[in-house]
């Protein structure tokens, strides 16, 4: 009912707020790029000196050295413009259906990320609900959920994938499963806290109504856990992306950002690694931003103080 009116002022504030936020982001980004250049020079210089020496050039100037360190073929740390160039060619200049396109690989990763995140969030919330409502679950499940997260996923991922392949589950699902495995945990931990966050007086009120557990959950616990949920979801979606990428490795390095990272790593193509990293980060930032946006909208609809 109040949706239309509540969303409108948000939209109206959008334009200036956007500018308001863009400038700082640009400034910070510029600072980071500058630092990055400095780092690239420092890290690449030793190799470059060797290279010059091998080439019999012992009279190089500082400017030449800097210039060369920023344009190495196998830099220790590629310079921002090298990464940007590679990123640009592999996203914009390459057809998105090509296997050399980062858009293609990004999409492969994104699809399992989203599937895994959705499943992980649902599973995480469901577990949290079970734990909050059942002493048996709380006591017996929680320690093992925690233990499950201490298992290094990369170690068992291949086995999981092999076993799933053996029973005929291939493609998106095994990867999404690993995403889910990594993403449900932050949601469970956060939601257990969130579902227990309502104040005693609010719970007492529900008791006086003799409300059923589902009613307490739906009308009190869930609404008051929303801040925890969104915070957890931001962590979870990032974890989910990492899970998808990790899950791509044992599938036989076929496609996806993980495959790019790894193949870049085999051949020491640092620039390719870095542009895949940049792609992964941008993807994550976009996903986290989407969750934040959803958070803002939901909180506004829940009448939060501006």
């Amino acid at each position, binding site marked *: 009912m109040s949706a239309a009116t509540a969303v409108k002022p948000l939209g109206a504030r959008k334009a200036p707020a956007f500018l308001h936020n863009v400038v700082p982001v640009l400034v910070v980004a510029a600072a980071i790029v500058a630092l990055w250049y400095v780092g690239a020079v420092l890290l690449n210089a030793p*190799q470059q000196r060797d*290279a010059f020496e*091998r080439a019999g050039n012992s009279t190089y100037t500082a400017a030449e050295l800097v210039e060369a360190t920023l344009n190495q*073929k*196998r830099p*220790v740390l590629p310079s921002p413009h090298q990464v940007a160039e590679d990123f640009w060619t592999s996203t914009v200049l390459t057809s998105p259906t*090509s*296997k*050399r*396109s980062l858009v293609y*690989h990004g999409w492969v990763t994104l699809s399992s990320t989203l599937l895994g995140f959705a499943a992980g969030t649902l599973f995480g919330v469901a577990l949290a609900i079970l734990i909050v409502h059942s002493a048996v679950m709380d006591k017996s499940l929680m320690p093992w959920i925690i233990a499950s997260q201490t298992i290094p996923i*990369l170690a068992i*991922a*291949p*086995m999981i994938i*092999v*076993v799933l*392949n*053996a029973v005929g589950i291939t493609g998106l699902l095994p990867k999404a499963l690993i995403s889910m495995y990594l993403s449900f945990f932050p949601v469970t931990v956060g939601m257990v806290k969130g579902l227990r966050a309502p104040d005693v007086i609010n719970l007492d009120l529900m008791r006086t109504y003799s409300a059923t557990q589902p009613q307490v959950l739906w009308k009190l616990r869930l609404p008051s856990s929303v801040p925890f949920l969104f915070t957890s979801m931001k962590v979870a979606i990032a974890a989910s992306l990492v899970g998808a990428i990790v899950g791509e*490795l*044992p599938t*036989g*390095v*076929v*496609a996806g950002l993980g*495959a*790019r990272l*790894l*193949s*870049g*790593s*085999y*051949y*020491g*193509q640092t620039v*390719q690694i870095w542009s895949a990293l940049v792609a992964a980060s941008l993807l994550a930032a976009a996903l986290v931003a989407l969750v934040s946006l959803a958070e803002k909208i939901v909180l506004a609809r829940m009448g939060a103080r501006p």
Partner: protein
Amino acid sequence: ADSVTLQLKWVTQAQFDGYYVAKAKGYYDEAGLDVTLKPGGPDIAPEQVIAGGGADVIVDWIAAALSARDKGLPLVNIAQPFAHSGLMLTCLKSSGIKTSEDFKGKTLGVWFFGNELPFYAWMKQLGLPTEGGADGVTVIKQAFNVDPLLQKQADCISTMNYNEYNQVLEAGIPADDLVVFKYDDVGVSLLEDGLYVMEDSLKDPAFVDKMAKFVKASMKGFDYAAANPEEAAEIILDNDDTGAQTMEHQVSMAKEIAKLTEGSDGTLDMGKYEQSVKILLDAGVISKEPEGAYTTAVTDKAKAM
């Protein structure tokens, strides 16, 4: 057509060009086979894949295959396309290493994941402790690429002559600046890239027949690739889903692979086999002399075709 799934040991690259060429050139089709090639990677143990039923036949190195057999997973070598080993230790001349005498006090990069055995066998042969210190060598677990050498984090690193060694060269270090030790030359090499299947499946004559056709067609593929490295490299690039491989690198790899498969019709060289088993027994990787770990049935049949 009969279907065959082959699990490769590593990612799509010219190392496996024989299989890719055979598929692309239709040799498998001619033999009435429908072959699926599954690329591998650093996290894939082909033995696990075949144990889980994900493949009919795998490309594997003998150390992993025999230790799996020792642990109760009965793998059998049915063919050995690679006659030689491509494993080497590549050192920077600038580190002062000229011969194996000079390893003392140096840091050496080694591949593990079952690939460390030739190295330890060699060090034992040289009488060098591997726990570090001035009288021994410091071992680090090297990942996939050659960066530790380029950045001088290690004095020597493991390389395959067909892959990483070329990467070192491509990185701008000329061959003159390098010292290379081939495991084949020091007599501690193990058999690489062989074809292995589960023992049970061999009881079925139809399966043996299928494998014979498969080995024959694959060897034909290797022969063609040896003769046409550029075309083989192109086929590899077509099949590489990551889009990370380069033509230049794959051509040079295909040329080196040609040397390793040279003269092989897939038959297992018993001398090399005995050498491998001895090293593995000495290292304690396998607890007893393996029995029935190889069969000539498939290659015999293939040759008869």
